[in-house]
């Protein structure tokens, strides 16, 4: 119905010039978008989203997990005590856990904050990788929910018992498609306060943090 040729009769210069012109428009727009987004990332949470680049692959939202160094436990995701909204406060062992806000969408979490949660058992940690990968080594306390198995098993996701805790999901690093997809499925299954650890298992190991071998207890 709308399959009319785009350059019908009015463009003797050919498809090349048409595409170049369109590419120019897209390029200019993308440049502005990245520039604006970079400004947003520098200034405050709630403006701008992480984008593919460096090792910070494709987080889903703007709000990195916000620390509550002052112990107020603020639940407002837009309130941040940190100048860099993506930075995770390192916080000593005794520090209060960073807040994973309930936004109706997953947020990104960094290794330091994951370590705090693992140490305090303050979150349900989910390993989204295959069972054999999980058995070969995983983050202490993590349960295994291979994405390939649970994607079609909505009931299992809905009945997942988090014990009132937030959820931290990790996978094998990279673009972390498994974690992101599982995180969204959990959101659709009615869970909230879900953080995706993009660095995943490889980064956890590189950071020298402990691992556990064996199957789900």
């Amino acid at each position: 119905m709308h399959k009319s040729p785009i350059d019908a009769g009015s463009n003797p210069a050919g498809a090349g010039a048409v595409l170049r012109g369109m590419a120019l428009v897209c390029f200019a727009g993308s440049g502005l978008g990245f520039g604006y987004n970079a400004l947003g990332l520098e200034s405050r949470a709630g403006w701008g989203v992480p984008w593919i680049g460096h090792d910070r692959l494709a987080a889903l939202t703007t709000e990195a997990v916000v620390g509550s160094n002052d112990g107020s436990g603020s639940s407002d995701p837009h309130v941040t005590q940190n100048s860099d909204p993506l930075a995770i406060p390192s916080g000593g062992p005794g520090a209060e856990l960073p807040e994973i806000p309930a936004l109706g969408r997953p947020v990104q979490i960094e290794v330091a904050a994951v370590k705090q949660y693992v140490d305090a058992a303050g979150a349900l940690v989910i390993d989204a990788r295959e069972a054999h990968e999980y058995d070969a080594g995983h983050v202490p306390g993590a349960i295994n929910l291979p994405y390939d198995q649970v994607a079609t098993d909505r009931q299992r996701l809905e009945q997942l018992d988090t014990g009132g805790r937030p959820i931290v999901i990790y996978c094998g690093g990279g673009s972390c498609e498994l974690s992101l997809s599982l995180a969204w499925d959990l959101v659709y299954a009615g869970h909230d306060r879900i953080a995706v650890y993009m660095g995943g298992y490889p980064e956890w190991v590189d950071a020298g943090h402990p691992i556990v071998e064996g199957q789900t207890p």
Partner: protein
Amino acid sequence: MSALWLRSARVVRLCEIVTGVIFAWAGLSKIGDLAAFAVQIHNFRIMPVTLENLAAITLPWIEIVIALSLILGIRSRDAARTALALLVVFTLAVVSAVARGLDIECGCFGTADASHVGWLKIAENLGMIAVAFVAVLGPAPAADRVPGVGRLETGDART
């Protein structure tokens, strides 16, 4: 062209401005909350999760460049073609969402409107495609020109 009035300079200009204003509105309303727009893109479930943020970052600004270009008349033919291409993609996205039975926010105008995908939205889009198509065609060339040559800029015509 049979419908020559469609390619009169005034009609084309009007179509450019209408398309430009719609794109400006669409772009601006998305920029306000990129994270929400990223979620709206996700709900369509038509692209890899990893690329959704990238689309959320770039799309609104591409729309704004298109709008400025069309309204100010700078490289407006290129902008009109990009607009048309985007509209076709958007329409296909809505059609696929409707076909899959998804009841989701369109996200067409960010969070500024809560309109959901549906046949009405598809009809709207087809209307916008028609308007953008006129802008793509541009004014009819003067009679003494080879048919198919695009219009000259107004400045050139007066010299």
